[in-house]
């Protein structure tokens, strides 16, 4: 059995990516369309396509995960070898109670898109919106990408994974971001926090996934923290 990567964060730089039209349309809440061609609206198609192509030039996908060894669970607290203060709240206990490990995930697309969105907001608001939606999906994409890499490791080790649970979600306080960033050394992928514990760049995601002993895999679609 390949060793479980414990002790250190595992970094991914230069994550390859594809910007799927279907996902961008979904992100823009345009229903029942899976490609821009299906829109049948040349101006809209052109505008979204331009944003997608700009996305290809601006996205810099990076991610990190760090697996922590769970040592015990008690009322509203899950202890690990590495931290006894991070995993708090009823929902967290419910998530991790049958788990041997918990992995923190952080991913980002870098600052370029949001800088461009900020620049365009005044002069070209529609373009800013389209580009922002591309960025929002791609931040999710990077989180999902790191999640998939981890999922394979979890499966090979004979575990099943829980859903992704976002920092600040439910009763897990957003202030936990500070410890998440520290444990994952997320500064190495260019992420910092502002005074309200929001990740900068904004187009970043953070979450935890548990390694369950046996049992059916829980739904993976649960939200993660997206700034």
């Amino acid at each position, binding site marked *: 059995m390949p060793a479980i990567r414990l002790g250190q964060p595992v970094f991914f730089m230069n994550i390859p990516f594809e910007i799927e039209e279907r996902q961008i349309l979904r992100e823009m809440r345009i229903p029942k369309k899976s490609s821009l061609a299906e829109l*049948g609206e*040349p101006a*809209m198609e052109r505008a979204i396509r331009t944003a997608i192509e700009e996305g*290809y*030039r601006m996205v810099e996908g990076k991610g990190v995960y760090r697996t922590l060894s769970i040592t015990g669970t008690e009322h509203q607290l899950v202890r690990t070898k590495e931290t006894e203060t991070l995993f708090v709240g009823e929902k967290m206990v419910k998530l991790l109670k049958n788990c041997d490990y918990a992995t923190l995930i952080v991913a980002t697309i870098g600052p370029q898109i949001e800088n461009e969105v900020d620049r365009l907001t005044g002069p070209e608001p*529609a373009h800013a919106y389209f580009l922002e939606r591309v960025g929002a999906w791609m931040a999710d994409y990077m989180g999902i990408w790191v999640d998939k890499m981890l999922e*394979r490791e979890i499966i090979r080790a004979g575990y099943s994974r829980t859903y992704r649970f976002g920092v600040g979600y439910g009763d897990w306080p957003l202030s936990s971001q500070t410890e998440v960033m520290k444990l994952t050394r997320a500064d190495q992928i260019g992420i910092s926090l502002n005074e309200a514990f*929001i990740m900068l760049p904004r187009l970043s995601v953070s979450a935890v996934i548990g390694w369950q002993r046996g049992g059916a895999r829980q739904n993976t679609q649960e939200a993660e923290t997206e700034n």
Partner: protein
Amino acid sequence: MIPILERLQREILLLDGSMGALLQGRGLPPGYAPDLWNLERPDDIAAVHAEYAQAGSNILLTNTFGASRLRLQEYQAESRIREINEAGVLLARRASKGKAYIAGDIGPSGSTIAPFGEITFEEAVSIFREQASLLKEAGADLIAIETMFDIQEMRAALIGVREGAPGLPVMALMTFNADGITDSGSDPETVASVLEGFGVEIMGLNCSVGPEAMLPVLKRLGQVTHTFLAIEPNAGLPLHKDGKTVYPSSAEEMVEFAPGFVEAGANIIGGCCGTTPAYIKLLSKRLKDSVPLARSRSRLTKISSRTRVLPIGEGVPFVIIGEKINPTGKKAFSEAIALGKTDLIVAEARKETLAGAHALDVNVGVPLVDEARMMEKAVIAIQNVVNVPLVIDSSFASALESGLRLFPGRALVNSVNAEEERIEEVLPLIKRYGAAVIALLSGEDIPEKASDRIKNAEKIYRAAERFGLRHEDIVFDTLALTVSAVQEAARQTLETIRILKSEWKAPTVIGLSNVSFGLPSRKTVHDTFLGMAIGAGLDGAICDPYDILLHQTISAASLFSGRDPECRVYIKNAEKWAQTATAGTSQTAGSASPSEPALPLTTQEKIERAIVEGEREAIGPLVLQSLEEGTPPFSIFVDQMTPAIRKLGDLFGQRLKFIPHLIAGADTMKKGVEILQPYLEAKGPTQPKGTIVFATVKGDIHDIGKNICILMLRNFGYRVIDLGRNVPLETILEAAEKEKAQIVALSALMTTTMIQMKIAIDAIRSRNLPYKVLVGGAVVTPKFSAEIGADGYGKDVGEVVPLTERILEELGKCQEKPA
């Protein structure tokens, strides 16, 4: 002992099984490094080896899977790396009693490798080189690289092993997932092409999810390579029962897959996690009379990206290598490269790939630019966004090397020629990085005659053999010379292709564009030449992938050159060209929109359509046209644009248009209003419909939704003071007072920041301030809005204008009432 590669020609050899599971049975604690037991519990290690040797293993893997410097660091044991690896070999050797080959076992580094990961490629190479060197010094017969999840790490390991243990055969095993691809997305065909490039003696797969899922992967490897194949399945995925790790498949179940492995081409069979000496014993019995399957050698040159393989040669599709990533003659491109920017390179890579290029030539040569550094950046940026193989193109060996190092596949290098100096600097790089190379048939000069070009080809082949390269590693460029300058030389190019193809079976490409230089209608010239060259046997071209005629020529010529069985590709392409032609015809007929009616539209109707369809570029000329037609500016705003944006709002309400349409329409209207503005101002100041102070609350830095709402409100004639994001309460209240606002609108996107809305409302109420408060944002709900006492809640941008209108109307009614 007979050399292992000799035995593999006629015998199926058996590897051993799991080491870890047996050591756990002997008391190895979970999480403890098994490699340390080479020193701490040598008798246990030797005993496990002996069990496998007695069971019938012909090859024993040393207990050094995690004995690289990086992995040993995790246990603070890196200073003992030599002892651990030496002991690993000696213990296996002792237990084998001279009857088994000893494979020095190397596992993954435990880290991720650049450009994908955090440690540099050369750092990774040095880690593997060190371990391989120690294993060789200790007397290993071969090196086994196992359980690699990423082809880039395997590349680093292979370079390290070749440099650290020269002369030893290498067995390179990747781990594939249940879907038949590796963690980093490589399929078996891609893996085979990369490993063949490095000339590994044995390739295959280990670990993974069990024998059933691994068999199809082995079959696919067997179909694309003649290299010896090895497979080490695990006994299914582990289970965790009562604090112990157990594996579901029994030795009896596992051994049932062995005949299938042999049929798929396996030359070496063993086991991975959860397998035991009992399994090896059964395997030995079952495969007693089995002989390895003979597999034929392919003459195709295969290059690949991380995820896709591209064969070049006879009988496979003609290869289009995009030529556009090249700064020659492109000012903007050169300037971007000089600044170290990759955005134009990425844009071109995307465009070329979408246009049908199968591989991309990457040339970033700009005077005074650090080409090696720029090549690195370009290769990283391109491989992030497209999945075609790259052709690394430079006259500098340093730039070639930085590209080869970071490209996580098998690259083609452009190029070597018959000059000694170039051969000496380029071919060692091809060998080290397992690449393929384009060989230009020029030397000190460019020979005119085919026979002289062939002499250069012979020279390059001889040199390639000297560096340990195979003929399949070389793709010849027969030199497409400019026909207007040297007509006979251009004809000799075709003759050279014929000779190389008929007598040498060698793959060929040409750089196409030069051939037509200096002539009118260049496309006709080089596309015709291309057709003739394909007829002569040409396999690929570095060319302009945006040239539709070129694609048509290639498709048609492929029909006559055995590259398109049953004409399927041609027919499919022809349908595509027909669609493009139809679209082109309708565009030239002036149809800007599929919904355009047959009758000509009035300017007002065109303005409406521009706003409803979000045709931002169209609105300016239309507003000017309307003004020219004598429509008063205010009427254009009130009677033409405002109804259009209201119509869009109605369509939104009916779910026929969506938020992006609203935003595009509002942006279009904004652009139209900007044009009208000077005309409206000339008529005197206009009275705004109301004043709104808008802010994203303190702590929150999201403002795209707020900005779009402001855009909508301004289009409807409201005066909006945009305070931006992360705005403190006092700033909001000061602005509202100063601007005499009727409404304070607050936006928040985080559950943690929406509480600021309550604080703001409480402050407004407690100070008896006259402002109505609107709230909105992704996390805000009607319930929350009601709980905090907001005057209005907007679900999305579609609601902001009606909501504002309603509140101001109510406010107006209140103010009309007598006190």
